[in-house]
Every structure is written in C-alpha cells, then in structure tokens.
C-alpha cells in the first residue's frame, strides 16, 4: 500500500481491462465466424455441394413471366431480370407512397371533420395490419376474385383493358432509345421553360405560372419528336382468350405495388403529420398575416420546413419499402427474391445464391441511403 499515487496493478487498471475485454470480444467473434465458415466449407465439400459462383453461367431452366427471358439463358441473366423487377417495384412504389403519404398526412390535419377522420381511420387501420396479409388480400381477394376474366374484361377502348391477366394500355412502338430521346427532350424543354418563367417572376414580381407554361410545351415537344423519330403507337386488343398489343401490367405486379404503397403511405403520412406539427405555429400565422392562400401557406411556408424534419425518417420508410418488395415473392411476382428461389430450385447451390441475394439488397439499401442523405444535406439549414 505504499504506492497509493502510482498506477494500479494491471488486473485493476481500468484502461487495460477495457482494452483486454474488447480485444477478447473481437477475437471470439472472429473465431466464431471462422469456425462457422470452415464448417460450411467442410460440410459442403463432404456433400459435394459447390460453394463458388460457377452456377451463374449455367442455363437457368426456367422462363420468367412478363419478360422475354427464356429458359436457355444463364442464371446471371435471370438475376438481372429479377433485379430489374425489384427496381420497378421499389422506384414506382417510393414515388407513389410519397405522394399518397404527403396527401394523407396533410389530410390528417384538415379542418374538415370527415376528411380528418377518414385519413385517421386509413392510417390507423393500414399501419396496424401486417404487410404480408395486405399483400395476400390484394392478390387473393382483390385481383383474383374482383377482376373479370378475359372474355368479360373492363374495356375502355384503347385507353385501358383490365382483367385478371393484367391491365393493358396503349404504348409506343419502335426503338427503346427513340422513346428515351423523346422523353428526355420533352423533359429538358419543360425544365428550361420553367426556369425562364421563374426568372421572369423573380424579376418582375408577376406570378410565374411555371406549371401552366412548362407542361403544355413539353407535351407539344413530345408529340413533335415522336412524329419526327417515326415512333408508332400500339393499342391493346382482345384477341380471343388473350389481350395483344399495348403494354400490360401483370396482376402480380399490381397487387405487390398496391400493397407496398398502401402500407408505406400510412407510415409516411404519420411522419408528415408529425413534421408539420413540429413547424412553429407562428410560421403558419405569419403566412396568414401575409394573406397567402391555404395552398401557398402549405407549399411555400410550412412544407419546406416540415420536410427538413421529415426527410430522415421518410428515408427509412423508403429503405423499408425496397426491402419489403421481397415479400412479393409470396404472390409469385418474379422479383429478385423469387428469381433466386427459382434458381435454387433449379440446381443453383443455396448458400452462394442467398449470400449473393443478401449482398444485392445491401447495395440497393446503401444506394437509397446515399440519395436520402444527399437530399437531407440539400434541405438542411445552411449555417453561416
């Protein structure tokens, strides 16, 4: 007890103990991982199960509905096709869930009793039902039982033909790149017109009416480019027992998209409601004092500030939606998970296949996070 001021012995030194403990934990974790991986390798070897990714170049042996993918193409192409379907579901789902969520979130705060109650009922019901059940209800009850057979299709000329095999509408015909060129040129023109109008508005103080100017111009440009490039159009037709022409949305895609949007929008709505309520009351009152209309108050004053609060949690909902899209496998929509299941059922080894599946979802989630973070940075208050 002579050295009361010196360092304590090693086994009582908090820093040494902390470090030792942390190193020990890391070692144990690493050892367990190595042990598991080694068992995997040894067991796979014992059972003659391949552990590499050679299966990606084997023929897939199954076709994918709703695409041109043939059973003679390699597994690699099947996974690409499945990933595209996942993206279709995720991107469209995120866009629709955002729009629906914001509208419902605003409706939750409406002064109109009926609107407010309906929005509240929707949110409370949907938010408290498992997504999986929603998916089965959409497919089993709504699509399979409420949609007519092909012979009794709901037929609205070339605009839409809807039956249990899918919903068809008219679509362009010709090269894909021409279609992209037409869309791009219309989009660029719309952007330029909108910028020009808003500059005029800034300079003169007269209302810009950007939308009123940009959208019709874009439509005209689209039609002109369409004709110049020689793009055709195809309309759906009922041909005996099937629908030909046009573009068709499969019922599985519809059911999956609807379930994902309904489910996620209820969560987005709650975030939007909370974010709007988090904006100081004085902001709305100030907008009223300036005699802004209800829409202007929301659009120019309240929502921009609310979004600053709402973007990070809404980003989480986007991640959830992208990952939840894998549930569509249960109703046979051929997205990435379903395609992986099919490849595993057709000879591909399970462990590498599912490892690859996890890796792809990880990358997809990280990319979505990246976009959300970028949006967040743009919206954050710039401190000077």
């Amino acid at each position, binding site marked *: 007890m002579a050295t009361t001021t010196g360092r304590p012995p090693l086994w009582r030194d908090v820093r040494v103990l902390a470090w030792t403990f942390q190193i020990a934990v890391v070692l144990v974790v690493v050892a367990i991982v190595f042990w598991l991986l080694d068992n995997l390798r040894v067991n796979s070897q014992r059972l003659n199960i391949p552990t590499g990714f050679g299966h990606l170049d084997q023929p897939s042996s*199954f076709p994918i509905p709703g695409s041109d993918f043939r059973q003679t193409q390699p597994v690699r192409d099947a996974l690409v096709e499945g990933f595209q379907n996942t993206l279709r579901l995720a991107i469209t789902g995120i866009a629709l869930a955002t729009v629906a969520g914001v509208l419902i979130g605003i409706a939750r705060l409406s002064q109109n009793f009926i609107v407010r109650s309906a929005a509240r009922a929707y949110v409370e019901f949907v938010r408290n039902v498992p997504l999986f059940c929603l998916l089965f209800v959409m497919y089993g009850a709504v699509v399979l039982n409420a949609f007519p057979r092909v012979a009794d299709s709901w037929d609205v000329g070339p605009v839409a033909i809807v039956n249990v095999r899918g919903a068809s509408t008219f679509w362009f015909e010709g090269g894909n790149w021409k279609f992209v060129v037409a869309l791009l040129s219309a989009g660029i023109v719309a952007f330029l017109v909108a910028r020009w109008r808003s500059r005029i508005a800034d300079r003169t103080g007269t209302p810009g009416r950007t939308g009123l100017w940009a959208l019709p111009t874009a439509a005209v440009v689209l039609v002109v480019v369409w004709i110049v490039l020689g793009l055709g159009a195809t309309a759906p037709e009922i041909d005996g027992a099937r629908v030909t022409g046009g573009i068709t949305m499969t019922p599985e895609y519809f059911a999956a998209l609807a379930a994902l949007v309904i489910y996620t929008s209820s969560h987005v709505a709650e975030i939007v409601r909370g974010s709007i309520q988090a904006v100081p009351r004085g902001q709305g009152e100030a907008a009223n004092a300036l005699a802004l209309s209800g829409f202007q108050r929301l659009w120019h004053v309240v929502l921009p500030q609310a979004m600053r609060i709402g973007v990070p949690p809404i980003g989480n909902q986007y991640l959830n939606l992208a990952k939840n899209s894998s549930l569509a496998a249960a109703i046979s929509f051929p997205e990435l998970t379903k395609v992986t299941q099919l490849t595993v059922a057709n000879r591909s080894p399970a462990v590498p296949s599912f490892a690859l599946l996890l890796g792809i979802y990880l990358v997809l989630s990280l990319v979505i996070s990246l976009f959300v973070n970028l949006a967040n940075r743009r919206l954050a208050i710039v401190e000077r």
Partner: protein
Amino acid sequence: MRRTFIRGLVPLAALSLVAGACSDTGDEGGEPAPSGSGAAPTTGGTDDTGTTPGSVATGSTPTTAEEVQTGESLLDTVSAADVVRCGVRDDLPGFSSLDDAGEHVGFDADFCRVIAAAVLGDATKVEFVDLETDARFTALQSGEIDVLVRNTTWTASRDGIEGATFLHPTYYDGQQMMVAADAGFESIDDMDGAVVCVAGGTTSEGNVATEFARRDLTVEVQSFEDVDLLQEAFIAGRCDGWSSDGSQLVGLRSSFPDGPDALVIFDDIFSKEPLTPAVRDNDTRWAQAVEWAIYATIQAEEYGITQANVGDMAAGDNAAIVQFLGGENADGVTLDAGLGLDPAFAMNVVSQVGNYGEIFERNLTDLGLERGLNALWGDGGLQYAPPYR
C-alpha cells in the same frame, strides 16, 4: 401461413449447414469407427490445420475434420433416435396429404412408413416433416430430414449438385397438361400464347417452356410456390393451363372444387419424371438400407405376399419366400444380407404397411391412376427388384 413460414426457413436451413457438424456429434454415441462410406479426402485434415487462422479456430478444426473422416452412418443415428425423419408434403392428395385426424396419408407417406418398418421394426416411428418444394434439398443437405420422399424427380444435376443420392423410383411419372373442360382446347397445339401455371421450384417450368418451344408455340409460364394459391389463380382465369406430373394432376383434379369433370387432362406426356426417394450423398449404408426397404415392397408383390397372408407365407414351405421374410430355412439358418437391417425387415414392411401393389391401390387407384409403367416387370411395367439372396 405455416407453409410460407417453412419457405422462409430456406436461407436459415442453408445457414444451418454451417452448424451441421455440431449436430452430428450430438447424435453419435458409439466409438468413431473408420467407415467405408465417409468419402472425405484424407488430405482434407492437413489442409484444414494448415489454412485455419487463429488459435481458437485451430482448436475446433481437427474435430471437424475427424468427423468428416469417421462420420457415422445415418443408419446408426436413426436407430439411436428410434425415429425416421421423413421429408414429405401435406397438400397432394394420393401422395401425401393430411386426413381428418391430421395424419399423413398417401403413397409417399406410406413409403416413409415402409422405411421405418424396415429400419426400426415399427411403421409408426416416422416424424413427418412438411417441406415446400424449394426447401426440400436444403432440408436434406442440412440434416433436417433423414430421407426425402416427396414426389421428387431424379435428374442428373440434382444427383450431382444438390448433394442427394437417389434410390429406386417408387413411381414412374411424366408431365402433362390440364385445362378447363369448357376452355375449348383440344390439345397443346391449340394453346399458342397461353398462360400456363405450374408449381414453382420444380422441373415443370422448364419442361413446359421447352415443350412449347419444340412445338413452335409461345407460352407464358407463371409459377406458384403454393398449390392452393395456384388453384385459386387457375379458377380465377389467371391461367389457361395447369401443368404438372400426371399423377399430381389426377390427384388435384379429384379434389377440384367444381368437381373433376370441370377439368380435362391431355394425353400427351412430355417429360420423364421418375419420382424417387433420396438421401444425402456419401452415406452408402443408409442409402442401401432405405433402398432395400423399397425393394422389399416390390419383391413381396412379386412373391404374392400381402398384408393378409404374410403370416402364412412366412410359415410356408417356399424356401425363397421364407428366406426373404427372415425365417429359418430347413436347416435352421437365417439369411442376414448384411444391410444393417433386421433379417425380418421384409416381414415387418409387408405386415405393417403392405406390398407395392397394396400401397399403390390403397392410395392411388381411387384417384383414377393406373399401374401403367409402375406395374411389375412381369406385367410389362418397370418395377423390378434385384434378387434377395
């Protein structure tokens, strides 16, 4: 919901391969004996110790390698556990479905009982494990089941890649097409551009696509994991055709809500589907035991031994039959074929479950299936057992 839950277990089951080595140790009671069936290369041991980093990992590696080399046969494991874990399904009438009491009944379920009767002497010592189509091989590989009797087609790549060893086909089947009787199709040739629904995770998808391509027709193949959902989609008009193995279609048609007459099965058989029980690779003793349990049913039918007369036959004077049933011959000697089975295993099989013909008739004849290729070889079929001597 439960079946979907099981499908969710696929990745888990895949990961449980990882833990496979541990569960092996748990079941092994006896001395590790050098076994001819353990096919792990002897060099595996040196590789392991050489490449494994970390002190803790090296501690566990020799155990793993040792188990690979001296791994005991499932035959011992199953005997010790006193139960056969048999991978089946619960939704295919005739082959394996649940009766009102929740018991598994059907052709495949009975062959699980045949294996239990042969190995354990008691046909009731079966633990039925219901599997989704795409979970079945993973379940077999990971050791979740001892034997897979789930109307599974024997193919080259399943033999090679899935780590399964296929035994004797219990049912020679072929894929066919079923359509609604009022759909106006006379044959597959009328079905250009049709949508065909199949049960996913099987050889059916590829077979349909290949057959339509061969006939120069276009087709869209929609696959479902769940047969009930498939049937709902078919009834709703989501698809024109329903394709599967002929035996399955007959079973499904028999339980169709609108009655069997609402459906027509085309005669064309466009694939070979030998439905065959399978065990894990590299376990010859277990494979042989299961294989001879199956052969016993065929041999019994050939000898004319039935559940009713097996007692008389065993006490009869046909030396070959007495030997087959494990009785003493005229000189008081009993044949033990060295399969690791009770010499009287065939007796147990036939008295508790029945011969091949009885099992077929009990489960499949009422559905409208005929023996066809599954008749005994003497009757022009393919069912043939090697001699028991």
